[in-house]
């Protein structure tokens, strides 16, 4: 585990946090969904049908987002609950919110001092892709793109301060 200051790049950016964000995400999918995420060989367009968000406040302020298409969201829910794909029903938003919540929690717990000094909001889940997100972020979002069962998933951390 490294401290916030150790993990800041020389230019003060948070690029060095990307590997931690990826590990935090991979662990959630391995432990809670029983699957390994892979790295896409080429950049893939993502239909952002489902976006789950968790706010961070305290020593680190920002928003962590998980975005994917409807098919990936349903499949994640199916894996999480261990139920057939056609039985996931209304649990999709709840499941995606929990995934985002666990990624955010797991990420902050990997940085010394942040676990105590950073609170998480309850998850918010947006369904539908026709929206604009206006953020107070001070820099471009840290973004990790991975494949879940061959379907693209974006994990993005927008840092406000």
């Amino acid at each position, binding site marked *: 585990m490294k401290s916030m200051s150790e993990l800041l790049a020389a230019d003060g950016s948070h690029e060095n946090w990307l590997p931690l964000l990826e590990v935090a995400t991979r*662990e*959630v999918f391995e*432990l*809670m969904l029983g699957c390994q995420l892979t790295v896409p060989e080429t950049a893939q367009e993502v239909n952002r049908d489902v976006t789950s968000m968790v706010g961070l406040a305290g020593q680190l302020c920002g928003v962590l987002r998980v975005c994917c298409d409807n098919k990936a969201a349903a499949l994640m*829910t199916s894996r*999480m*609950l*261990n139920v057939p794909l056609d039985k996931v029903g209304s*649990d999709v938003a*709840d*499941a995606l*919110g*929990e995934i985002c*919540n*666990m990624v*955010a*929690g*797991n990420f902050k*717990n990997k940085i010394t001092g942040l*676990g*105590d000094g950073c609170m*998480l909001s*309850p998850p918010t889940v947006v369904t539908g892709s026709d929206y604009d997100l206006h953020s107070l972020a001070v820099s471009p979002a840290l973004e990790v793109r991975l494949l879940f069962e061959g379907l693209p998933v974006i994990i993005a951390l927008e840092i406000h301060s």
Partner: protein
Amino acid sequence: MNSIRALIVDDSSVMRKIVERSLRQAGVEMTEVFQAGNGAEALSVLQDTAVDLILCDINMPVMDGLEFVKQLSGVANAKGVPVVMITTEGSEAHVVQAISCGARGYIRKPFTAEQVKEHVIPVLAGKS
């Protein structure tokens, strides 16, 4: 181990289902599983129901897990009932706070059924 009655407290119904499944995978036999979406609902359940084990999230609306655990001392049906926290809040300070409030175990999300077993079985056996 005898079959038990468990109360699972989490604002996510998906997480409540996962916790129940993990308990069964951990070998915990349950005759009944009660569920609540926050601490206040859980206290209401305990007014009429005696349980043997409580698994509880921390971050919940209305009444969070720490406040719920504090209030358990005044609930007759909860006397001596072990509480295990299951939460994304994994810092040392949160663990200390939960234990000082009366929790007997602490599991960090994400978790495996094996981790649930490691933390819950000793608590049920009175070894923790």
